[in-house]
């Protein structure tokens, strides 16, 4: 083999237990979809420390203003969602892909599986894509998503949320999550939100209203930082 062994990358720190939610019978669809066998612990290798990393290959065009993707203006409350992608030591994660998808102002997704009796908006698709800048910053302009019912249990409604997909620098930083809005009355009732058991950890998924980010006479601003796994300070030993 022609591979030099001199330069060893450093490992990612482990994720503290209680960060990512386990299977949760309260969210019924998890019951048959989460593995029952214990995960097999393996060492990190080059295969996990590397990973898809924008902009090597164009995944799609940048589209960070969801209110300007059609001929007309979508209905609903225009908002700005801005924040940074950081590692767990607060270091920025630059040049990484951030994608979002969400319901429209009425709580309806532009997806054929969504049969909620609420109107579609011909001027709103609900998907966006951007790349973080050198300081790890991202920014979207969108419409505040509505609440919507789902079939998990009697009278089940989701808190308003925006789905976020972040690649990060390696396979181990891949994160798909949901950003919530402060003070949503549905928080105590939602099994997906509460699948994260520790209230302090759960709070990391809730954005904050930011008057500084709010543009006068135009749109409210919500700030939300996304924190990914970070690296050990020292390289892996062979």
């Amino acid at each position, binding site marked *: 083999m022609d*591979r030099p062994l001199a330069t060893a990358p450093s490992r990612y720190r482990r994720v503290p237990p209680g960060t990512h939610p386990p299977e949760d019978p309260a969210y019924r669809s998890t*019951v*048959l*979809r989460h593995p029952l066998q214990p995960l*097999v612990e393996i060492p990190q290798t080059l295969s996990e420390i590397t990973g898809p990393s924008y902009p090597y290959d164009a995944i799609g065009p940048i589209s960070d203003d969801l209110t300007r993707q059609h001929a007309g203006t979508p209905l609903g409350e225009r908002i700005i969602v801005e924040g940074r992608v950081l590692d767990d030591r607060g270091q920025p994660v630059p040049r990484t892909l951030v994608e*979002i998808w969400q319901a429209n102002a009425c709580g309806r997704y532009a997806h054929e599986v969504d049969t909620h009796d609420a109107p579609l908006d011909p001027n709103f698709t609900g998907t966006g894509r951007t790349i973080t800048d050198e300081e790890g910053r991202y920014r979207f302009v969108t419409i505040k998503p509505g609440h919507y019912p789902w079939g998990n249990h009697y009278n089940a409604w989701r808190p308003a949320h925006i789905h976020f997909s972040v690649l990060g620098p390696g396979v181990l930083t891949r994160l*798909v999550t*949901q950003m919530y809005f402060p003070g949503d009355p549905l928080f105590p009732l939602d099994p*997906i939100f509460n699948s994260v058991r520790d209230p*302090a950890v759960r709070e990391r998924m809730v954005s904050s209203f930011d008057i500084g980010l709010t543009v006068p006479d135009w749109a409210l601003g919500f700030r939300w930082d996304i924190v990914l796994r970070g690296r050990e300070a020292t390289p892996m030993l062979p």
Partner: protein
Amino acid sequence: MSGITPSQTVGPYFGIMVRGRSECRQVSDATAGTRIVIEGQLLAGDGNVIPDALVETWQADARGRYRHPEDSLASGADPTFNGYGWAHTQGDGGFRFETIKPGRVAAPDGGTQAPHIIVSVMARGILTRFITRIYFDDEPANAEDPILARVPEDRRHTLLARRSGDGRYLFNLVMQGAGETVFFDV
């Protein structure tokens, strides 16, 4: 230290995000290596297919190089190969990746790993992404792979893509129950 943001499910509607991407193309005519197709189905604990999952892959090029700054050999990686694959499972729970057979990459112990592809599974009803690997059942190097060696022998077969024809492999992902795929804590 800041707290890591928890994972949440992709839910049933991530298709609108995937549709907004370009088509997933990993190889072009110029890409070096043996063309392969990996096909399979994603199955739930009751044997039913999972038609609303996002299956993602990451792999080295034909010479075992990753186009990534952490690979010291990245400058020699095939610029025409995209190591990132993604698929939204269809109504039959099916996914399909048209790619190349990956080369061998370094192992942490100084040896080399058998050819493999990293797989991430996300779906409605899955709160946290699950990671596994695809190995190839016709690959002699499997016998010396340090990761496969960590897997209980009676479950290793769940990580092997079965050769089903010339350049074709079959690999099912079973989330639960009999033949449950091995998932990793990395």
